Each structure stands twice: as C-alpha cells, then as structure tokens.
C-alpha cells in the first residue's frame, strides 16, 4: 500500500471512528446509568437522519437539522423513558426487550412516513468539495466530521466532569441506588440521561447522513456498530466510547481494505474476544446486575 493510500485510509478510519464516537456515546451513557442496553439506539439514529432529511427539504439548511434533529430525539426520549421504561424499573431484561419493541415501531413508522427507498442528504455548503491531501483529493466533509466529533467530545467531557449535572450522572453511573437514598430525583435523572442518549444518537444520524445515506436498514447497522464500540471500549463511560470508537473505526476501515472477505467477521470476533476476556470492556465499569 502506497503512503498516500495509507493516509487516505487512516483518515477514513479516523472519520469513521469519529462518527462511531458520537453514535456510541449515547448508548454507553444509557447503559452506564440505567443498566439498559438500549436496542432502539439504531432506530433513534435512523430517526435523526430522517428528521434531518425533512428539515433540509423544508429549509434547505443543514445546520438547522444539526440542531433540530437531536432536540426532536431528546423529546422522544423524554417521552419514552417515563412512559414505558420507568414501569420496568429494576427489571433489566424486560427493559431491553421493551427497547426492541420501540425499535420495531419507530422503524416501521419511519417507513410509513418517508417511504422505503434510499435517500440522500446533500453535503452542507462549504463542505461539499475535496481538498488536496498528500497528492490526492479528500472530501472536506469527512474532515468536518472529525473536527465535529473532537469538539463534541471536549464539550461532553466538560459537561461530564465539571458541571453539577455531569457529577450527578457520574454518580448515577456509579451507584444509582445510593443517589436515590440521598434524595436525588433519580426518575428525572434517568429520563434526562435517556433523552441525552437519544439526542446523541439522532445527532450521529444527522452527521452521518450526507456521507452514508438515508435508507431502511440503517438502524441495524448503526446498532450493531454502537454495540461493538461500547463493548470494546467500555460499557458505561464516555471515555470507553471514545477508546472503542478509536479502535473500531480504523479497524473496520483497514480491515475492509486488507481482508475484504472477512473484515466484518473480524470485527465481531474482536468484540467477542473482549467480552469473554474483559466483560466490562477496556475501560468500562460495570455492576454485576441481572
């Protein structure tokens, strides 16, 4: 492989990893706080992309979609958590099953409202060109994705580590029961966490849409990848999501180039190995719960 190709693939890997981070952060957060593997995460991602499609069609503004889609998803999360998940508090398997049902409903409704053909979202103006990197053209949008993810990571880190709400979330990930015993309104905390997780998924959907398209079935791919990232990097922490994304993104990209036949299987093999050797992932913190 020529050095230019390596550089290109490396950038691809990093930008894919950046996207994976945005996608997986929400899932990790929800699991860390609530011990729920949100299997509707892919559906949230998908909904974000379709909402973005609608917004761009209506206003022609990509940046509006970047704001509106996560807000919509946040509201969806704020409705679902109290309405459905809360009734199953403490019953983790049932909660996971519930998210399956939610995913079924959301993906079907999306198909009803927006149809089942593949759609595309145009690149936002300003990022629809390629620039010259090491002798070949590289789309600026992918560089934007990397930059966006870095900024988002910094913002999330700041919120997570330096604000009161972040402290509450960290404490909740550690021991939600204790928080409740201390008088914190864990119901509200869980609802907010779930909403934030959903919003992040929706944001990932918007950001991914110009590069990856908008089509039925994108929810399953997104869900699978976010599960892999979260498992590899660490269940329950933002740091874990970033480590996982940083590993899986390039692995997937280089894998596709080097061993196209079994790239996908290889990724899952890595996931399985890590689950077996270190169930909590490379950086994760888990409580042994049923």
């Amino acid at each position, binding site marked *: 492989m020529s050095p230019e190709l390596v550089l290109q693939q490396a950038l691809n890997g990093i930008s894919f990893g950046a996207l994976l981070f945005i996608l997986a952060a929400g899932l990790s957060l929800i699991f860390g706080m609530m011990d729920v593997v949100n299997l509707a995460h892919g559906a949230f991602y998908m909904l974000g992309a379709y909402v973005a499609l609608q917004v761009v069609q209506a206003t022609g503004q990509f940046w509006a979609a970047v704001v509106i889609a996560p807000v919509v998803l946040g509201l969806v999360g704020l409705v679902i958590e109290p309405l459905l998940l809360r*009734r199953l508090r403490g019953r*983790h398997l049932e909660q996971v099953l519930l998210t399956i049902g939610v995913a079924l409903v959301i993906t079907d409704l999306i198909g*009803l409202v927006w149809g089942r053909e593949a759609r595309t979202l145009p690149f936002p103006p300003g990022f629809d060109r390629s620039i010259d990197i090491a002798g070949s053209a590289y789309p600026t949008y992918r560089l934007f994705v990397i930059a966006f993810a870095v900024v988002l990571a910094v913002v999330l880190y700041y919120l997570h580590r330096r604000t009161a709400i972040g402290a509450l979330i960290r404490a909740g990930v550690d021991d939600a029961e204790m928080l409740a015993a201390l008088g914190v309104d864990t119901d509200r905390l869980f609802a907010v966490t779930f909403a934030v997780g959903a919003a992040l998924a929706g944001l990932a959907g918007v950001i991914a849409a110009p590069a990856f398209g908008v089509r039925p079935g994108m929810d*399953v791919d997104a869900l699978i990848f976010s*599960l892999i990232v979260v*498992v590899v990097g660490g269940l329950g922490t933002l740091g874990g999501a970033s480590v996982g994304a940083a590993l899986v993104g390039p692995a997937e990209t280089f894998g596709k180039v080097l061993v*196209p036949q*079994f790239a996908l299987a290889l990724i*899952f093999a890595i996931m399985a190995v890590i689950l*077996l050797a270190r169930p909590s992932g490379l950086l994760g913190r888990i409580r042994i719960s049923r």
Partner: protein
Amino acid sequence: MTRPTKASLSRGPRVRRWAPPFAGAAALVALFTFPDWSASMEGSRYASTILRDMLVFAVYALSLDVLIGRAGMPSLGHAAFFGGGAYAAAIAAERLGTDELAVTLGAAVVVAAALALVIGALTVRAAGIFFLMLTLAFAQMAFAIAFQWTDLTGGSNGFAGVRRPVLLGLDLSPPDSIYRLVVVVFGIVALVVWWIARSEYGRALVGVRENERRMRALGYDTTRLKLSAFVLAGSLAGVAGALSAWSFRFVSPNDVGLGTSVTGFVMVLIGGAGTLLGPILGAGLVLYIERVLSSAIPYSQTVLGIVFIVFVLAARQGLVGVAVQVWTRVRR
C-alpha cells in the same frame, strides 16, 4: 405442574391427564390432512402456505423457548443456528449430490449443533446481559460470514433455487408434500420438547433457571447442563432452518441476522415462555401479523411492536400465561 399421585390413578383425573396429548394428536392429524379437507374452500392454497410458514417458525420458536423459557438463558443470537441449518440444508443438497431427506436434514442438524457447541462453550458461563450480548456478537459473526462468503453461500444475494428433499424415492417438491413434511417435523419437534419438559432433564433445566447457585450446591454441573440445553436448542433451530430453506426455496443472510433472532424472541414472549403452546401461538400470531395483516394495512410492524411492548409491560407471561391466570381466577 401436577405430579402423579394416588388420586390420579382414578378415572376422572386420568381422563384429564390424557386429554392434552389426545387433543394435540388430533390437531396434528387435522393439520396433516388440511390440504384435503380444505381443497374446495377458497384461498386453500394460500392458507396452507401460511400455515406451513407458521409451523416452520413454531419449530423455531419452540427451539428458542428451550433456552429462554426452560433454561432461563435469554439469547439474541439464535438465528445463527436457524440460518446455519438453512444454509447447510441448501448447500448439502448442492454439494453432496443427493436430495435424500435424511442426508440434508442431517446436515442441517449437524452444522447447527456444531455451531451451538462452539458458541455455547464460549458463552454459556456468562449470565444475563452479557450472555445476551455475547450471543448477539457470535450470531453477527455468522451473519458476516454468510454475507461475505459469496462462493459458499451466495453472499448478499442469498442462496436461491434450494432443492427440496426426497424421501426414499418420494419427491417432496410439490407444495402439499412440503406442507405435510413441515407438519410431521413440527409434530416430532413438539413431541420432543413436550417430553423433555416433563423429564428429569427438563426439571433440572428449570432448576438452573430458578436458582443456579442452589443447583451447583446440590452437585449439578450447571455449566454442562446449560451447554447441553444450548446445543439442543441450536439443533432444533437448525431443523427449523432446513424447513425454511425448503419452504421458501431460498436462504438469505437475513436468516442469520439480528432481525430473525429478535423475531424469535418476540414470538416466545408474546405466546408465553416456558410452555408448549406458547411459542406455537406466538409464532402463529407474529406470522399472521407479518403476512396476512401486512397485506391489509401498511403499518403491521408497528402493530407488532406495540403488541410486543404491551406484553412486555403488562403480560410478561404471554398469551398462555394470561389464559392460565384467567382460568384459575374463574375457577375460584
């Protein structure tokens, strides 16, 4: 569960004990002869196709229930064995040069069992959410392989033109013959699951489900028990997969995919985990929604999702469980 006591040796309760198996046998006979006695009815061919598919997935759901309902091991990777069996049946017929039922069905069972043995050995020690995720990961590996090993499986295009089996010279290609094959295999699998449920082995699985710690303290090697249940469930799923391959004459990577694993779970839960009738009813209901309802209304999957959510929230024990509760209450 009632156990035989001196009282059950008298006339009345004995009738009650034998009624269910008798009803089951009668139902099987009715199903088997369905193409004959419904021939004059309109839509008979369509109906027997739907019935056939319901029974194929009833076998699949019964196999998954061995894991979820009996052994208490909820898995999201069961499609690996269903799809694995389907591909094995299709590929065996093509590569081994024979359509003999024993060979192709045998291939499906062997491949599914081998997969289950390997995956089970690695996953069975995990519990709860980790087991769920591990089974999902391994099933996705199988999906990836099915998707990308185009030479063997046809890749993303799937495996078309699956050859239907031949039973000792009898060609089972006609629709009615395949239908009857499905009925017979379903009957056998249902019998197997029923027998296991009432056997000492089945009771040991319940023990593992209810209190694994205690089972170990009593001297049971629960890891081996769980692995045996996993392989048994996987093998039965492989049988369902073979039936599916023959019914649709087509195998696709989706048969190994997350959607199929999820569908199985939905069927078992809605019908009633841990019962014989539950998975069968669940398969019937889900297939009804997916096939019949979907041609009438465009939002059938939404209906399925909502039904599923309702059951998870309010009726975790499924249709059969609810029916039993209502019946007990009515009798008081």
